[in-house]
């Protein structure tokens, strides 16, 4: 056994890095379900101790999945930059934590090692970090992306306006879009989860959003979160596609269960780029992820949920996305049991994503069969906003009537702006001020003049 430690009179053996990572993971139901979690708190603490002593170079020697069996592993190997890695190559996992927190390490130094890091290294160090460490280091990682506005600047937080409707009714969706805009939401994207993935339906929704954005000259982008094959087909038939959406995971087998592979994502990205719809930049992929997705597809290769998740970020960053969203509590209590596990996972995902250079947002959410409530979401959203989270969701009242779960509301973003002074993307903030929705001071207008979107409301009412 390579990874062993004696504590008091007991020997603890971890047969490989994969096992060590799983045993060192803060407790979550996904790893228990997979049968790879620590059986005791002591075993977990000892595993963290052993993990802290592991040299980072070990992650380049011992691979979690044989590259010949898994294209994500090949991608991780091929995209690893030895030159960027040189600055930290002598460190252990524990030493890396201290390097990240050290005042002598500049934010630029941290950004400089991005491509020298494998997702497994970021997952490993996160496992020996407290929540405050995850927040403090993530805050040091600025990631800026652009399509029709600038997302991720320091001191700002954006929102995805999510106007879902159970039957994709255009008027119902338009009503939620207007409500969200009037509450200052929607700068990350106006993004609909369609109730049905049929090309005709998706095309109708794309046109609806394109009309609203075009008519009111809103500096933002739209997305209908259909399967990438549907979006590809629609791009070829001339539908107005801004962002290409896809759910992704950290193993080839899990991606296969989603009906995708790297070549398909590359094809979709190239097709979208050729449309030339971005005005200030060309980041146009929108990915969603979440701990437990590989396990739920029975495609985790014995790797713990959080490490699988970090590997999904290696897939994401190969496509320079505009947005990456970890949908942290959506998957249910068999993966993240309660508020405590959801909060921890949200902070881990945001940290790992940012460290790898991704525009990381978080769907701060839970389902009704999880042991969680809106107070847990208040906690996670506040912690993430302090950590510099790129964007959160905005949904009417925090209640998604199509996907049947709860997330953050339009009002929640206003709360973060109020208590932390965080602003929307600059182009979008200017638009909110011009429209009379915001007051010029990052808050809703108190003016008795109705905002300029009133015309759109009358139009929807049919008079």
């Amino acid at each position, binding site marked *: 056994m390579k990874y062993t430690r004696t504590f008091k009179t007991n020997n603890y053996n971890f047969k490989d890095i994969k096992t060590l990572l799983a045993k060192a993971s803060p407790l979550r139901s996904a790893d228990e379900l997979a049968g790879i979690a620590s059986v005791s708190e002591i075993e977990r603490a000892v595993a963290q101790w052993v993990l802290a002593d592991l040299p980072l170079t070990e992650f380049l020697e011992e691979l979690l999945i044989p590259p010949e069996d898994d294209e994500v592993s090949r991608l991780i190997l091929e995209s690893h930059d030895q030159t960027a890695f040189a600055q930290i190559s002598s460190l252990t996992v524990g030493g890396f934590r201290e390097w990240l927190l050290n005042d002598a390490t500049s934010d630029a130094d941290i950004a400089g090692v991005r491509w020298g890091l494998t997702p497994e290294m970021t997952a490993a160090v996160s496992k020996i970090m407290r929540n405050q460490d995850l927040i403090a280091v993530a805050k040091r990682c600025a990631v800026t992306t652009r399509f029709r506005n600038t997302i991720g600047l320091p001191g700002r937080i954006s929102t995805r306006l999510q106007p879902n409707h159970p*039957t994709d009714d255009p008027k119902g969706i338009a*009503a*939620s879009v207007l409500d969200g805009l009037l509450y200052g939401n929607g700068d990350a994207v106006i993004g609909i989860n369609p109730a049905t993935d049929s*090309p005709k339906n998706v095309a109708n929704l794309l046109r609806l959003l394109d009309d609203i954005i075009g008519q009111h000259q809103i500096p933002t982008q739209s997305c209908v979160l259909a*399967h990438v094959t549907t979006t590809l087909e629609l791009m070829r038939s001339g539908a107005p596609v801004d962002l290409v959406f896809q759910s992704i995971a950290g193993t080839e087998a899990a991606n296969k269960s989603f009906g995708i592979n790297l070549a398909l994502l590359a094809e979709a990205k190239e097709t979208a780029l050729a449309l030339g719809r971005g005005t200030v930049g060309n980041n146009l992929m929108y990915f969603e992820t979440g701990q437990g997705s590989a396990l739920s597809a029975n495609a985790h290769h014995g790797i713990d949920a959080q490490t699988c998740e970090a590997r999904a970020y290696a897939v994401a960053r190969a496509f320079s996305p505009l947005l990456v969203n970890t949908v942290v509590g959506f998957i*249910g209590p068999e993966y993240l049991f309660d508020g405590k596990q959801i909060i921890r996972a949200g902070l881990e995902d945001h940290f790992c994503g940012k460290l790898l250079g991704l525009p990381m947002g978080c769907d701060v959410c839970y389902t*009704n069969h999880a042991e969680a409530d809106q107070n847990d979401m208040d906690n996670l959203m506040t912690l993430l906003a302090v950590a510099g989270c790129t964007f959160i969701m905005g949904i009417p*009242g925090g209640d998604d009537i199509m996907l*049947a779960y709860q997330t953050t509301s339009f009002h929640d973003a206003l709360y973060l702006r109020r208590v932390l002074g965080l602003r929307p993307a600059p182009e979008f903030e200017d638009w909110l001020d011009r429209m009379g929705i915001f007051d010029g001071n990052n808050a809703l207008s108190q003016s008795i003049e109705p905002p300029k979107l009133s015309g759109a409301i009358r139009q929807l009412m049919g008079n």
Partner: protein
Amino acid sequence: MGDPWMELRQFTQARIALGRAGHAVPTQALLDFQLAHAEARDAVHFPWDIDAFAGQVHDLGEEAVILSTSVSSRSEYLRRPDLGRALTEASRTRLNNLQASAVDVALIVTNGLSSTAVERHGIPLLQAIVKGFRSRQISIAPVALVANGRVALADEIGSVLAAKLAIIVVGERPGLSAADSLGLYLTFAPRPGNTDAERNCISNIRPPEGFGYAEATAKLLYLTGEALRRGKSGVTLKDDMDTENLVLQTIIELD
């Protein structure tokens, strides 16, 4: 402070135009949310009267067979989805013995995460589906009823019954304004190990707010026909149907 666009509420059940107290929601909206969450939480743990349901399936003129997974409690069901994907040995044997002639479709019903949904919409939906299949001469196996099942349970049942297609009706996880929504999943050539990419889904069956029974059945009949004709299901079987026309046509046909 109320919102001047209150009238938009007629277009959606979403919590729009809530008004505000400073940056926050008004007290009434806060309390409404908490109450709805309490209702949804209770719906998750509501039991399903499977015997009564079997009786109602008989009343539709269909055979029903009650099967089990090894899940022993609702709380275990929530933590161990793997147990909800497999039949007990006894149920598998029972199903094996039941097998008579080859059928087109294995039809399965489980309460999933909302017993309320199956109790409220299960029978009328089955009635529409059964009628549709009869009119198209599509043969179905006895309806399998399983408490605490997961979607992938359809793979095993469909495979044991040697059905060309497995269709499972499942209670979807409750949302705040929708604690009673049903989902339908269709898989061609069901066998253990099918992935989600091989399934087609119709969700939000919950009249009057969500999809209606006839509308969902029309979609299902279309997908069933295409899956049988083209020998596949899932992301490669696109849902290209012109919904409105076909729904109308099928409703007329079923009447």
